[in-house]
């Protein structure tokens, strides 16, 4: 293990995992002094009946102050302001967030405003605003991918200024993350596959990016093992509780790993493809992940080779010569994508050119690639990537990912 000259690691989220994890929420929240939590969720989660499951599980233990389910897919600061007003009007003292990345980020935003006081989140911007513990926040993720339950970031849109407000503080780490397979039981197969590939991308990128450290490495490798072992069973058979719990665990561990080691090329390109072409994040991750490994192999050959150990198991790792391990790891991920494509009846795309809008038109036209490449310079994920990413590099990778062909390594600029 190469020890970095410096690293910092923080993941102070109490994690509760198990088939009855939700039943532990009342006791743990009471230990945090909570009496009257507000449940924050979205209409989709509510319609899937998950809020009933949650309230049943915590029934009697806590007095639910309010259920705020008005979080749209494109949540923004006004939703946060609205949610905080509901929180204050109902004299709540904690938040239980039930949902995916958007719900969790909005809940973090509501918690900032509700804890620090004020009428609007706009007044809470700026470095150093959050300098004390916020009110307790419990997160119940309903997808196994974003890892938001373990991150210290909240991204809230400001639609008027067309900007994203970024809040970063260790006080934004939730107090509790509850991993219970009942929360992901309604997730369709193609969403299970895409979100899990998002978690795999978090784990792999955290293992080779510039902030890698011994703790994030250990978490990442375990997350990769869990995903490679349980993803296909969970997609094939959503009723398989243990597989879904394993994916929830993998997602949380990958979240803790990447929250500390950060992510690189895959997220750099993926964020922009998502923003420009409105492609789901998980789809971008699953397509771009092999390219992230290929692009960085010359800088991180050993680390990327080690990913193979968790991805394919010790037997294949031992059989593969050291030099060939990075390529084998890439091949394993491509095979996984291919399998997921077949199992989901083609709903899990394998390359950018294959993604279709609802009306059947290409979601990522080839003509959009130069614009995407240019915009990657404005995304923070380019910094932790081991190899420099300039627009020409991004375009080269995007062209390969669009066509679904292996990266031509001779075109990677390696510097003097």
């Amino acid at each position, binding site marked *: 293990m190469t020890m970095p*000259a*410096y*690293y*910092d690691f923080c993941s102070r989220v109490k994690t509760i995992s198990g088939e009855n994890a939700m039943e532990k929420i009342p006791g743990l929240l009471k230990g945090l002094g909570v009496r009257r939590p507000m449940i924050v969720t979205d209409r989709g989660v509510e319609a899937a009946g998950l809020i009933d499951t949650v309230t049943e599980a915590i029934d009697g233990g806590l007095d639910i102050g309010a259920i705020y389910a008005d979080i749209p897919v494109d949540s923004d600061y006004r939703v946060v302001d609205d949610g905080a007003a509901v929180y204050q009007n109902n004299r709540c003292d904690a938040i239980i967030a039930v949902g995916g990345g958007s719900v969790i980020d909005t809940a973090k935003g509501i918690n900032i405003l509700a804890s620090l006081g004020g009428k609007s989140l706009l007044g809470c911007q*700026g*470095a*150093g605003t959050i300098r004390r513990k916020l009110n307790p926040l419990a997160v119940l993720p309903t997808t196994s991918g974003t890892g938001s339950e373990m991150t210290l970031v909240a991204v809230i849109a400001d639609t008027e200024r067309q*900007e994203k407000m*970024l809040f970063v503080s260790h006080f934004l780490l939730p107090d509790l993350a509850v991993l219970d397979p009942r929360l992901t039981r309604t997730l369709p197969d193609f969403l299970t596959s895409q979100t899990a590939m998002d978690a795999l991308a978090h784990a792999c990128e955290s293992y080779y*990016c*510039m*902030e890698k450290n011994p703790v994030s490495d250990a978490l990442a490798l375990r997350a990769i093992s869990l995903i490679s072992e349980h993803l296909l069973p969970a997609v094939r058979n959503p009723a398989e509780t243990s597989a879904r719990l394993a994916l929830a665990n993998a997602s949380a561990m990958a979240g803790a790993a990447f929250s500390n080691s*950060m992510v690189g090329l895959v997220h750099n390109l993926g964020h922009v493809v998502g923003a420009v072409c409105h492609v789901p994040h998980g789809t971008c991750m699953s397509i771009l992940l092999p390219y992230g490994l290929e692009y960085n192999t010359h800088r991180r050959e050993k680390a990327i080779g080690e990913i193979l150990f968790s991805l394919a198991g010790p037997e294949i790792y031992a059989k593969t010569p050291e030099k060939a391990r990075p390529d084998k790891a890439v091949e394993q991920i491509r095979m996984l994508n291919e399998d997921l494509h077949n199992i989901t009846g083609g709903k899990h795309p394998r390359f950018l050119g294959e993604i279709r809008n609802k009306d059947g038109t290409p979601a990522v036209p080839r003509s959009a690639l130069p614009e995407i490449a240019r915009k990657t*310079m*404005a*995304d*923070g994920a*380019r*910094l*932790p990537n*081991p*190899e*420099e990413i300039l627009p020409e590099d991004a375009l080269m990778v995007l062209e390969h990912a669009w066509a679904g062909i292996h990266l031509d390594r001779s075109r990677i*600029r*390696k*510097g*003097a």
Partner: protein
Amino acid sequence: MNIDRYPEIRPGKKVFKKAYAFVVLLVVGRGIEAADRVDGEVKDIVRGLPEGFTFSLGVAPSGPWMVIRKEKSGKLRYLGWRRFGKTIELDMAIRNIEAAFRIFTFRESTAQAHNNGRFSVNGNLPNALAIMRIMDIAEIYLLPKIIATLAVKRYPDRRELPPGRKHFNRLRIYLRAFSPGLFRVVYRNL
């Protein structure tokens, strides 16, 4: 208990390291201003910044600093080391003087330092990334290759930056950075 046995301690100052950081920031500030007049990529990046955009880079909490603004002419201008009276839209601060000294003695590259959380950034992230790229380019021109390879993630090879162009631009940047304008800005800040 006699609490006077455990006196309050007011830590001192690291004068040499602050002076060194001051000089480096002055050179980098002038170098960035010069690079904007010489290098095509820097010009492109600056074009994307809003007019009047002012940013500062320095060492928290008590400096030294450098302040640069995009003028009406569309060019960057190094305004010196005083932040008072200026509206700073992007504030990039190295968290302590010891970390700044590591970065400015090239023991830690700018990218690694950012990844190590040595910088605290207050302002718009895309603009911060643009400034970091400009700083990388300025470092490639200002520093000899052996040192610049420690400071940047990828030192451009011959195809990316032909030697002729590199050396010609380097000369122009040095001449501009240490032109009489330097004395003018120093005088204005005194």
